[in-house]
């Protein structure tokens, strides 16, 4: 028998699949067969590598060669050159933008250098549709250990000692949450996994479910053992078809192995998992709303207490954690709480997965130790700002977070520091903005999202956010007043202070943080009627550079509202009171004489 000497890992995450990674796997397989190499090299579809910027990714093992933006047409060359002859395909290697050198071994890529992968340990490493590969990586060993060696309380103590905090946003200590659910007496309890990741621009949980579904299943079973629950429910976004499919396959495989179901490991412990689908409501990330949604109702939150730990799904005690939190559990059990607690800062232990996006060179999914600075994330891992522009702000925590500025770049990232800086950890969205982004418009963008996603149950969120959005729109149109800025402040405070659930309590954060950090920009919009980023159309003015204008009349003829006048062969002018800012003149002008300011 010939030994497999090479693995070709092809990213099968949603990002890479969107750029046709499935075709790449197929082409690789065909090519291997054609060259008679299929017994020596094997194509493995894995979860996300994180480096979504350059997908589809193909990684060749064992020499850690990292090919980027691979198309199905490249497959033949990879097989012929690399698999057969050991010659790396230069043109597909990642080009380090700073050193302008290709990097062949991903371990030397700055994108990966500062990362520590715990929750993502198996993503991009194993075939998520094959339980054996998970088991080979110590999978289900933690569950076995808990069931056979520890009491539920001992497991809870391990989690408590590890210092793990909820990765879904609030940062509640996970061990404590488990303990509360465990202590409540009830005939039935539930383990709930919140996989309703709704932050625009965040895909941490999806990547874990796509890349390593068993880690979540195993952790849920461990939680069931600790809390005394025999039923698990995963509330997952219906917009994540691939994650759903992989999770379903994983659950089936776990059942076949007897790792879910009756009498697991012969210990008399029963546990099984079902899926419930979300249907597009951001507010369902809030745990009480999520529970209502799982019960077939409108996803409206209810006042806490009672907390789900006491009164949850179907009125029974329910432990709700998100995907990333669960994904950390098996490793903590196996490597011990001290190891986990050695990573991170004093109050925030371990790592955090972020979806790094926006105006950075390396968009992607990263996992970094708590305490890393924003600078390291954005300028080292993220490779700096796109097109050499200037860094302006970074928005963390999704729509509920705040915009941080250059002065926060050296703040170590953890729950408490982000909160103190006026933002939050949230579920881990991180959007980088540059000089071309108008911060008033950004605040408006987030409010638009909140207005759309508010459930409408409580008045401050339902009406207050709408009013915030209206005021911001007014400002962007150049109709704002200084009084409006005061209104924004008061309204934001009251909405935070009085809203029913986390959505409303945090929705004004983008406004408050931009008011705090970019006050000048607001004042410019209001007083000078200027948008320095050039985003707010109403504040822009089309003018004609008299020196460049040759008087060809093309612009005047193109103008749909006759706002341009001028004699033939004489410089033209635009009447700003008539101009509708359609830009037709600028498009038509061959002499770059039409200016937009």
């Amino acid at each position, binding site marked *: 028998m010939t030994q497999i000497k090479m693995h070709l890992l092809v990213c099968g995450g949603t990002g890479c699949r969107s750029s046709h990674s499935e075709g790449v796997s197929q082409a690789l397989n065909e090519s291997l067969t054609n060259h008679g190499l299929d017994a020596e090299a094997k194509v493995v579809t894995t979860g996300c590598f994180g480096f979504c910027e350059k997908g589809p990714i193909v990684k060749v093992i064992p020499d850690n060669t990292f090919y980027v933006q691979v198309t199905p047409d490249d497959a033949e060359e990879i097989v012929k050159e690399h698999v057969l002859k050991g010659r790396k395909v230069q043109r597909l290697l990642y080009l380090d933008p700073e050193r302008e050198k290709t990097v062949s071994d991903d371990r030397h890529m700055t994108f990966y250098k500062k990362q520590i992968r715990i929750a993502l340990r198996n993503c991009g490493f194993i075939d998520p549709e094959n339980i054996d590969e998970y088991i080979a990586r110590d999978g289900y060993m933690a569950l076995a250990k808990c069931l056979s060696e520890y009491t539920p309380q001992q497991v809870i103590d391990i989690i408590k000692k590890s210092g793990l905090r909820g990765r879904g946003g609030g940062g509640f200590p996970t061990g404590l949450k488990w303990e509360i659910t465990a202590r409540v007496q009830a005939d039935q309890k539930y383990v709930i996994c919140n996989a309703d990741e709704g932050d625009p621009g965040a895909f941490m949980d999806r990547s874990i479910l796509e890349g390593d579904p068993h880690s979540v299943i195993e952790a849920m079973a461990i939680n069931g053992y600790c809390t005394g629950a025999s039923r698990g429910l995963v509330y997952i976004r219906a917009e994540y078809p691939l994650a759903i499919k992989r999770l379903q396959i994983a659950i089936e495989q776990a059942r076949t192995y007897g790792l879910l179901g009756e009498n697991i490991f012969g210990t008399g412990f029963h546990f099984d998992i079902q899926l419930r689908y979300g249907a597009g409501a951001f507010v369902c990330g809030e745990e009480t709303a999520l529970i209502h949604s799982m019960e077939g109702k409108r996803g409206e939150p209810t006042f806490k207490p009672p907390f789900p730990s006491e009164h949850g799904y179907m009125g029974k005690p329910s432990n709700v954690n998100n995907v990333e939190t669960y994904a950390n559990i098996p490793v903590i059990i196996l490597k011990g709480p001290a190891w986990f607690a050695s990573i991170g800062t004093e109050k925030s232990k371990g790592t955090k997965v972020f979806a790094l996006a926006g105006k950075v060179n390396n968009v992607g999914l990263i996992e970094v130790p708590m305490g890393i600075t924003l600078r390291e994330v954005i300028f080292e891992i993220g490779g700096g700002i796109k097109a050499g522009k200037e860094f302006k702000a970074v928005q963390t925590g999704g729509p509920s977070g705040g915009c941080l500025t250059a002065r926060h770049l050296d703040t170590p990232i953890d729950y408490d520091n982000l909160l103190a800086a006026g933002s939050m950890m949230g579920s881990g969205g991180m959007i980088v903005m540059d000089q071309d982004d108008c911060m008033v418009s950004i605040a408006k963008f987030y409010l638009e999202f909140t207005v759309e996603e508010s*459930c409408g149950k409580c008045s401050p969120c339902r009406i207050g956010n709408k009013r915030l959005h209206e005021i911001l729109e007014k400002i962007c149109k150049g109709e704002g007043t200084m009084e409006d800025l005061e209104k924004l402040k008061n309204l934001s405070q009251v909405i935070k202070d009085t809203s029913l659930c986390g959505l409303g309590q945090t929705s004004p954060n983008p406004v408050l943080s931009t008011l705090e950090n970019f006050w000048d920009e607001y004042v410019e919009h209001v007083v000078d009627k200027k948008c320095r980023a050039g985003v707010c159309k109403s504040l822009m003015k089309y003018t004609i550079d008299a020196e460049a204008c040759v008087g060809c009349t093309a612009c005047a003829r193109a103008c749909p509202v006759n706002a341009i006048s001028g004699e033939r062969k004489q410089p033209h002018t635009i009447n700003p009171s008539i101009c509708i800012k359609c830009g037709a003149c600028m498009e038509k002008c061959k002499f770059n004489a039409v200016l937009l300011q």
Partner: protein
Amino acid sequence: METIKLTIDKKNIEVEKGTTVLKAAQKAGIDIPSLCYFSLDGMKIENKPGGCRVCVVEVEGRRNLAPACATEVSEGMVIKTNSMRVLNARRTVLELILSDHPFDCLVCAKSGNCELQSLAHRMGVREIPYQGAQSTYRKDTSPSIIRDIDKCIMCRRCEMMCNDVQTVGALSAVNRGFMAVVAPAFEMNLEKSPCTYCGQCVAVCPTGALTEVDHSREVIKALADPTKTVIVQTAPAVRAALGEEFGLKAGTLVTGKMVSALRELGFDYVFDTDFAADLTIMEEGTELLERLTRYLNGDKQVRLPILTSCCPAWVNFFEHNFPELKDVPSTARSPQQMFGSIAKTYFAKKLNIDRKDLVVVSIMPCLAKKYECQRDEFKVDGNPDVDFSLSTRELANLIKLANIDFHALPESEFDLPLGESTGAGVIFGTTGGVIEAAVRTAYELYTQKPLPKITFEELRGLDGIRSATVDFDGLKLNIGIAHGLGNARKLLEEVRDGKSHFHAIEIMACPGGCIGGGGQPLHHGDVDILRARQKAIYLEDANKTIRKSHENPYIIKLYEEFLGQPLSEKAHHLLHTHYFDKSTQIIVE
């Protein structure tokens, strides 16, 4: 009883564990303003979505403000209900609510009785700083209820009433965010929904979003028309509540003043629905005995228990939800319709006028009656037996409109013959009353013996579902009572599943029966008002010399002169009805 010690506005108080901050403050004499919160204590009716955020208070050690209505007290809690932070937040929240509310208070049906308006007044709101788009929707008019949901503030009280209490399911919160509102499915008209017109949504709506269809203009027009003879009937529960609209204590009986007021308004005859209630007992009681006798004789076809049918919302309810049981309820028409039918035949003949020239107006504690009198089966050649049905509230407005000093009115008597009634007719106005009245008559007709004791305490009360066994001289009659359609549903399901052990069941749609009807003066969640009204009804009964329907001399005369016997062909034609299947039909193509 475990108690909790806490401090509210520097006052130390001790309350029962599980008490909310709102109730604890009330105990300490601190009235925290609230809006969406609503409860009928002791009747298991409570609405606390914690949605309006008007009742927020500051709890020491808590990051944000807490809604007093939903926050339970805990040991050592320190609460401020009037700090600057609280006052500013409360005012801003109210300003926000007002900013999404039409500014047409002057012409709003709820003006003067609107909880939002009084709150704005109490907080001294003089301008709306946060103006912007308002959520607007289509206006919807049904036979009984007008929905002007631009005025909806999402307190969810109507939704709670319609679903949790009444289990009607006509309304639900729909849409999301700024456009969220309470509406029927597909935001269609109420008329196309399974709405029963019980009016409980109207009874609890704090604003003008849900109001009754107002027929007083038509009534005024009829009164002013010299060619019309206009007569009026007043339902039993009206007299026990009308006084509240004029500042009288709840439970003050105003029968005599009401009659005077109606005369002053120009009604040609002032009659009493109680008369028709006695008539209903004659028909329904006889029907009960007839079915019972057949049953005792071994007739397997007979449907028992017999269900009362005088509540129009209840009739709508089973037509929508239990069409398979539509031959179970009594076929007797409601008192309102019996009255109309007799008025436009027997009485019109006596006056020697055409039914078209006789206008029958009813004063009802009810909104479903508006729908009921428009039903086709209660019309003769398109002319309805009852032309207009006004609610207690509409009557009060009419009296005020006509500059009548209600307090100065003398007490007068109803006109004859359709104004004479017994105590049995009066108690129709409360839960348990119809069946008690029926038992008084059925007992004597069945046993041929006089009742040893006229009142049946075991049938009275305000529990949602009650049951009692009445001894008919050896025959044990099992009686069930339900008020509130949710309770009715439970008994109905037993009947459907063949598990009911009752011989007769009384059902009233509204909590408390007609005293808590959708057309009554608003009780704003004060259950003591309902209790006082109920007490007044039983007092009126006790004050009557004749207290059994079959002893009403004018009823006896009506049968002698016109109808013959109960359940006679003529009685069937004029006093009975049939029911329809109104459930959703799926037609397969």
